């Protein structure tokens, strides 16, 4: 029969795992946002070479499985450099690089959605490309991509469960460990499912709120 009475005993461990999942996701999306901003700006800029570099990055990362990327970094790189990569570092690297590609595409779309006249007005005032991007285009693009960044955060939170396979002790891995101790897989995975759901739902509420907040002064 189903038995949930042991759950309170393992809950602290699961909550700790959820905490790891959250900061791992935040780090991945944070670093991914920096990578993605550069990629998006490069993709929509005037330099052909930089445009190709960013397109290549985005297409390679988006065109290959995240699990393969995780394996390549965790198992592949140590074989190449002759030293092991800690699982935390490997997890952050793989997730950030992956997120960077998706966010790069989001940023590119955001920049392209800003009216051409905004560039022209800034240029006509003597502002160079860098100033124009920084003060005029990027802030407007950012507002428009907030919902998509929120979705990316939710997607990354779910995908981060993949790093359980390299022994990163996030929520899913904590659950696996609990299963090996208790032999109650159904109860534990149900609880973990609910914990993921609560996290993604809360984030989606936050995204909706921030969308409204940022949309006040425009049009």
């Amino acid at each position: 029969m189903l038995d949930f009475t042991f759950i309170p005993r393992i809950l602290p461990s699961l909550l700790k795992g959820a905490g790891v999942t959250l900061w791992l996701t935040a780090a991945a999306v944070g670093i991914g946002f920096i990578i993605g901003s550069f990629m998006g700006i490069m993709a929509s800029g005037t330099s052909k070479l930089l445009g190709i570099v960013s397109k290549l990055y985005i297409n390679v990362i988006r065109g290959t499985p995240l699990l393969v990327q995780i394996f390549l970094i965790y198992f592949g790189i140590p074989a190449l450099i002759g030293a092991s990569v800690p699982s935390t570092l490997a997890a952050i690297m793989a997730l950030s690089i992956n997120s960077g590609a998706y966010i790069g595409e989001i940023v590119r779309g955001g920049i392209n959605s800003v009216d051409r006249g905004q560039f022209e007005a800034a240029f006509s005032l003597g502002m160079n490309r860098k100033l124009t991007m920084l003060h005029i285009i990027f802030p407007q693009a950012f507002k428009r991509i907030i919902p998509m960044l929120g979705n990316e955060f939710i997607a990354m939170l779910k995908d981060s469960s993949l790093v359980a396979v390299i022994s990163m002790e996030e929520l899913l891995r904590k659950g696996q460990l609990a299963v090996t101790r208790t032999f109650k897989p159904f109860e534990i995975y149900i609880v973990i499912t609910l914990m993921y759901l609560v996290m993604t739902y809360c984030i989606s509420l936050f995204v909706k709120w921030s969308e409204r907040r940022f949309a006040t002064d425009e049009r």
Partner: protein
Amino acid sequence: MKDNIIEVRGLHKKFKRTEALKGVDIDIKKGQVMVLIGPSGSGKSTLLRCMNLLEIPTQGDVIFEGRKINDKSVDINEVRKEMGMVFQSFNLFPHIKVIDNIILAPMKVRGMSKDEATQAGMELLKKVGIPEKANDYPAQLSGGQQQRVAIARALAMKPKVLLFDEPTSALDPEMIGEVLDVMKAVAFEGMTMVVVTHEMGFAREVGDMVSFMDEGLIVERAEPEKLFTAPENARTKLFLSKVLHSS
């Protein structure tokens, strides 16, 4: 010529299919208000946009203060600091307040302090008649008010020339007057202006010289009184008879 601030020589601009400019020559003198008129598609806006290189000419020279500026060795941002532009669709920056629209470039490009730029910006807002809108966002303003802010924003850089690209064409009729009044005031203060417009009354009253363009060429150029009362070219006559009768 020494008193020419802009000289355009043999200017051609080809877009993918069409040739918008087919060899245009024009001189803009210091302090002059040059009005460009002509049917739509005649190349007026393209010519204006070539002057600050928002369009890159296919062939020919744009000379600003004696220096050819459509050349790879010229830092175009340096030149654009001296040439303000007012657009048909205003193009105010929607994410920042009116006053910030005005002071951004003076601070970031000219290196003015915030206090200095704000003070000058408020003066300009008074001049265009809407100092009370300083802390509003552009979307809270009417079209006419937005265009007046756009003029103030261009003036804040203390340019040597102001380019106007159909500044009243996107406005509701009742707002055209307030924008033209501001332009008139700026002209009377001695600003060099190149104005693409369909407002023949403005051309006649404020223009020092009017150029009529058709099919990518300047067909006729004369002082407004002469061009409007005794045009010589047949195409100028036809155009004027159409626009003057309808207004």
